[in-house]
């Protein structure tokens, strides 16, 4: 791989990012609109000596990548809405067993089979709470094809750094949109390799915590024989019924992410210094939001953009900060207000929070966002003909 420009779909940019990050194992199952992720892996992994397997179902796919990670590979699986639902039990297993891996969900409209070929952003809460129990969540929400490439590398890096599953959440539009992207030279972008234990095998404890960091995950077959289970387990990996330890472990699993928000959360900020109205947008909706904010600024209106690239852990500090300076935060999203509620929670009444919720499988139009900023009532399914920049609702 050398530096080159390619014109690709988001789904292919994602696998290019995965290959760059050293992913050499993919297991998947066909589902619209993420199928190209699997197809491109099937076409590209053998060329670099990697392993590709089409499994019998969604559950088998995510189970296989956990197994592959235990055997030392960097691994990924991809899916869309219904498949993401099926994978949830093993998302929890991976969180519990602290398996570094990457799961892609190209969102489509739900609930249920819904509208397979239309975009949505309605899996953001599922990505956080989909599996039973309180588990840590790292979820990235890229909003362009090039960014998807970089965020996929970051997903693998975060997975290795925190020994946890990481979800890349994008939607049918980003997945199928074609953009020219640059693939950097090897070494140009940092790739974190899996840490290896440096102790003797007899001293190895796969869940030992030192300085707040869990021990490296040894690969099966390298002499470090140990046990992996989804049960609450002690430092040596074997089941425990110690209640204090269970409490501490659950806290540690969640806090290893929450306490490192400063490292994991990344935001794009535009015109926030003096913004009276801030649009908080992610993924495909952020594309429209960015366009709208620039148009508004050009017309002399003090609008700003806060665009999280990481939606979980939630960028609460950034929201708190703007809620102290802005009069209003607008949250456009292709669901019925899943992140709007989080923004309200952290704005804590300091400013008004208004949502634009569109679920008709059409991306939110910049004009809808502009009207919302201007105080003009917004119909979710109606794209306004004109925007009156002199309007003040």
């Amino acid at each position, binding site marked *: 791989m050398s530096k080159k420009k390619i014109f690709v779909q988001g789904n292919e940019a994602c696998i290019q990012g995965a290959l760059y990050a050293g992913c050499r*194992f993919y*297991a998947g199952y066909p589902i619209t609109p993420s199928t190209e992720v699997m197809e491109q892996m099937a076409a590209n992994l*053998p*060329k670099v*000596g990697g*392993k590709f*397997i089409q*499994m*019998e*179902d969604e*559950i*088998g*796919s995510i*189970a*296989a*990548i*956990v*197994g*592959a*990670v*235990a*055997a*030392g*590979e960097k*691994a990924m699986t991809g899916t869309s809405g219904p498949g993401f639902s099926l994978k949830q*039990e*093993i998302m929890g*297993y991976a969180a519990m067993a602290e398996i570094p891996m990457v799961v892609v969900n190209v969102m489509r409209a739900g609930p249920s089979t819904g509208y397979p070929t239309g975009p949505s952003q309605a899996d953001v809460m599922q990505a956080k709470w989909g599996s039973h129990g309180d588990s840590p969540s790292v979820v990235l929400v890229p909003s362009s094809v090039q960014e998807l490439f970089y965020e996929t590398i970051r997903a693998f890096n975060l997975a290795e750094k925190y020994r946890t599953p990481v979800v890349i959440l994008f939607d049918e539009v980003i997945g199928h949109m074609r953009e020219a992207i640059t693939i950097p030279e090897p070494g140009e972008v940092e790739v974190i390799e899996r840490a290896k234990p440096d102790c003797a095998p007899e001293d190895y404890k796969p869940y030992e915590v030192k300085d707040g960091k869990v021990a490296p995950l040894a*690969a*099966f*077959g*390298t*002499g470090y*024989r*140990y*046990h*992996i*289970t*989804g*049960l609450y387990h002690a430092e040596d990996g*074997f*089941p425990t019924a110690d209640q204090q330890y269970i409490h501490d472990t659950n806290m540690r699993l969640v806090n290893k992410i929450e306490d490192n928000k400063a490292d994991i959360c990344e935001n794009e900020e535009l015109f926030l210094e003096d913004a009276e109205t801030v649009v908080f947008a992610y993924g495909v909706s952020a594309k429209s939001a960015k366009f709208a904010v620039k148009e508004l600024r050009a017309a002399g209106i003090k609008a700003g953009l806060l665009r999280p690239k990481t939606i979980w852990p939630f960028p609460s500090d950034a929201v708190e900060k703007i809620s102290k300076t802005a009069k209003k935060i607008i949250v456009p999203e292709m669901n019925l207000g899943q992140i709007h509620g989080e923004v309200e929670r952290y704005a804590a009444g300091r400013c008004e929070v208004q949502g634009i919720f569109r679920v008709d499988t059409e991306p939110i139009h910049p004009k809808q966002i502009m009207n919302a900023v201007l105080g003009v009532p917004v119909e979710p399914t109606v794209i306004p003909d004109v925007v009156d920049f002199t309007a003040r609702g």
Partner: protein
Amino acid sequence: MTTEATARTVPYKEKKPFDYDPYLRQGKLPHIWCAGCGHGIVLKSLLRAIDALGWKNDDISMVSGIGCSSRTPGYVDFNTMHTLHGRAFAFATGVKFANPKLNVIVTTGDGDALAIGGNHFIHAARRNMDMTILVYNNYIYGMTSGQGSPTMPEGAVSTTSRFGSIEPPFDTCELAKTAGATFVARGTAFHAQELEKTLYEALKHKGTSVVDILDSCPTYYGRFNKHKNVSEMMKSIEKDGTISVAQAAKLPPEKTEGKIVRGILHRAERLEYCDGYQNLLDRVQNK
């Protein structure tokens, strides 16, 4: 059911007394299995077979699902993974495909393998990836206190078939063979030495090997189905209810009716999955 008329001669040297210690995680014993449960007998047969093969602990990965039998990996000093209900085959597929040098063994139960894991089971058999699957078959869900499983005989009583099961059972071996497993055998916890030899052959076989192991759950199956005690249960189900491949070959069909046949039931040569993938890599990369 029998496709192989005669039992194979097994090159096998019995060691006495056998030292299990190198294979067990002593600190994790005693195990959770009830008195009279056959799982320990199965485990001992397995460890003796592994020893006969001379496999090193470092090179073995044991993967299980959920249930009593799936607790086996916790007790053995291999690279072990206790996964989720029904999913062991898929996890094991990932382990083996990622590192084909590992000898992969799946320990599972009748409910784990054939109910919730049925789809993974048949596809594992179809792919013919080199792994050995041990189905500890005791007709019942023991971990959750005695619900009927897909191998439970018609008429049998469980907490979910209090008036007798009205469902026909799966035949694990027929299912595995039809799905494409290239080594299919049956053993019992009663015939421990025979099981050891069967497992030796199963482990040695390159491809997906399935061994259905009739096992006893006196705590639930035995109690619900009027078996007086463990030995009576093992004798009536595993000893008197089964005949060997060799015995079956000598008897007329009417005499084998209703009997479950033990031994190696099916063996086929077919390209192993990881070898097939290596061929694919060679083809793609040498283009």
